[in-house]
């Protein structure tokens, strides 16, 4: 089967530093960090070469959760893939659903009713809130603040997951969006509860920030650590809060204006230095903007149908063609590329996973830092292995 010519072997040996006489100064230590390391956010491994405590080489190794998501997507019908997208980034199933639904809607030219657009925005922004909150909890834990900040974050996350559960039936694997709308409507009691959660969230963020933003340890561990230069961030296709922390104003909610985002008044926070602290701060400010969007959406949501009556879910066969659809997920640009050949299954189904591509520059950010910083830098990238490995 493997009839392709073999590649020449490549050498990744790192030579130890030499002193003036050409003698090696001490030995290098090679550590295989992971795949079962508590701070690798899943089954992820880093092959790190250390000179003392300093990182001189780092190669990310993944694929432990690989199940060939794309192949499975090509073997089943368009609708059957929808619940499977939940399992990509299992923290943000709502935005995964939306990205896939948006792509297929563009492929088939389906319209989405007004109410469904509002529900989608509400769900996506709630997802962004809980993802960013938990990420901050996780990476503060990576720095050694064991338990407490993460539990505060999880307490708030649970309130949002309760909302997801009462709307879709599942906390995390929501399977909520459909081509041309959403699966079930939300009622007034749900909207009232969502309003309550949204209005309380600002207070929680104040509390969270009071503990963290000016914290001396957090400042010492994050400022000027893991700096990502602006030019490299663009060239390496980094997206999401990491890109904006590097000083690039690129948010697909503003650039593509997908859905109804043009109706909301919100700002895009942009960092200055591109270090971990900026990434933390951009996420906090983004959450505050999300609250604004949520309050406006919950105020303006109209009554009406939640599914396009012309949308046909079963036996859905779009015309031949191809499309690339993308949305601003909490972790970055989440894209789906689908080629239809007119049959009930897609000919090609491709996921553009933001956290996979954001790992490209992990080594560049870690070189020269201490091994304990590498853990924090990885935490600030915000990866979910379900999406990296697919």
């Amino acid at each position, binding site marked *: *089967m*493997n*009839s*392709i*010519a073999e*590649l020449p072997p*490549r050498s990744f040996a790192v030579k130890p530093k030499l002193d003036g006489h050409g003698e090696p100064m001490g030995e290098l230590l090679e550590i295989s960090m992971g795949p079962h390391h508590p701070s690798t956010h899943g089954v992820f491994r880093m092959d790190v070469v250390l000179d003392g405590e300093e990182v001189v080489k780092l190669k990310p190794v*993944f*694929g432990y959760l*690989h199940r*060939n998501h*794309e*192949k499975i997507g090509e073997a089943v019908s368009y609708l059957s893939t929808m619940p499977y997208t939940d399992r990509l980034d299992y923290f943000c199933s709502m935005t995964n659903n939306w990205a896939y639904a948006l792509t297929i809607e*563009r*492929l*088939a*030219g389906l319209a989405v009713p007004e109410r469904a657009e509002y529900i989608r925005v509400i769900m996506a922004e709630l997802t962004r809130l809980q993802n960013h909150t938990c990420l901050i909890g996780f990476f503060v834990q990576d720095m050694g603040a064991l338990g407490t900040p993460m539990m505060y974050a999880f307490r708030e996350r649970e309130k949002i997951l309760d909302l997801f559960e009462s709307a879709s039936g599942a906390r995390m694997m929501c399977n909520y969006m459909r081509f041309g709308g959403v699966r079930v409507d939300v009622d007034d009691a749900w909207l009232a509860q969502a309003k309550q959660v949204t209005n309380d969230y600002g207070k929680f963020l104040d509390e969270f920030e009071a503990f963290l933003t000016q914290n001396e340890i957090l400042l010492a561990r994050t400022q000027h650590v893991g700096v990502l230069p602006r030019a*490299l961030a*663009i*060239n*390496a*296709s*980094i997206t999401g809060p990491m890109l904006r922390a590097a000083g*690039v104003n*690129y948010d697909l909610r503003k*650039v593509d204006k997908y859905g109804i985002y043009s109706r909301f008044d919100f700002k895009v926070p942009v960092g200055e230095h591109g270090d971990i602290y900026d990434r933390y701060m951009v996420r906090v400010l983004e959450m505050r903007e999300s609250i604004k969007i949520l309050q406006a959406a919950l105020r303006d949501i109209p009554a009406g149908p939640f599914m396009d009556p012309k949308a046909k879910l079963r036996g859905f066969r*779009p*015309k*031949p*063609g*191809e*499309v*690339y*659809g*993308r949305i601003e997920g909490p972790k970055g*640009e989440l*894209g789906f*590329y689908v*080629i*239809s050949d007119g049959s009930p299954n897609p000919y*090609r189904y*491709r996921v*553009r996973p933001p956290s*996979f*591509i954001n*790992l*490209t*520059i992990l080594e560049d950010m870690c070189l020269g830092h201490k091994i304990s910083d590498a853990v924090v830098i990885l935490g600030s990238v915000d990866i979910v292995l379900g999406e990296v*490995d*697919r």
Partner: protein
Amino acid sequence: METLEQIKARLEKILPLTRLDLLPNECPAGEHSLLVDAASGFAVAQFLRDDPQLLLDYCSNVTGIDWPQATIKTKVKKQVLVEGVAKEIEETIETLRSGHLEVVYHLYSMALKQGPVVLRLRTENRTDNTRLPSLTPLWRGAELQEREIYDLYGVIFEGHPDLRRILMWDDFVGFPMRRNYVAPDDFEYEPTPHDEVLQAAKKHYPAEVKP
């Protein structure tokens, strides 16, 4: 933003040796794509990245696609005179598509906030010449994605700094995303003798590999 026709016309002036084709896309979103021959793929990509009117500095998505050899049936409507009356007849034309692997780049511009330009490169065949120029020297964002395509499709990217398997393990044989890939009964054979799992696994390994 310029249309793809305009980009193609400008490219033909600057790089006259390039073979360029516009591939239409029937989808309502209308993302037509530009097919470039492998030899001048890198030069075209460099032009797209550096041209001040396009500035496609952001390579968002890299996709591999497998197109095995197939006969394509296209229906064409034809006007035919039948006993002096013009009639419309549908005629099926069969064309043979040679097998190839395809790599699709979705390029956007962060500086000018425009895009996408869809760039396609095709290998000569699916077996012994699956080489394409790597665009990682231009966009580092393609690094892991091209590694993934090498891993799952077997496209060899020339000029890639670190082309290794990425999702499958290093001694894995075969390319699982290809259309004709057949998965073995079990990927992890158990080295226990007198085991039917072992017998099933043996069938899938070549004779020189003694489990």
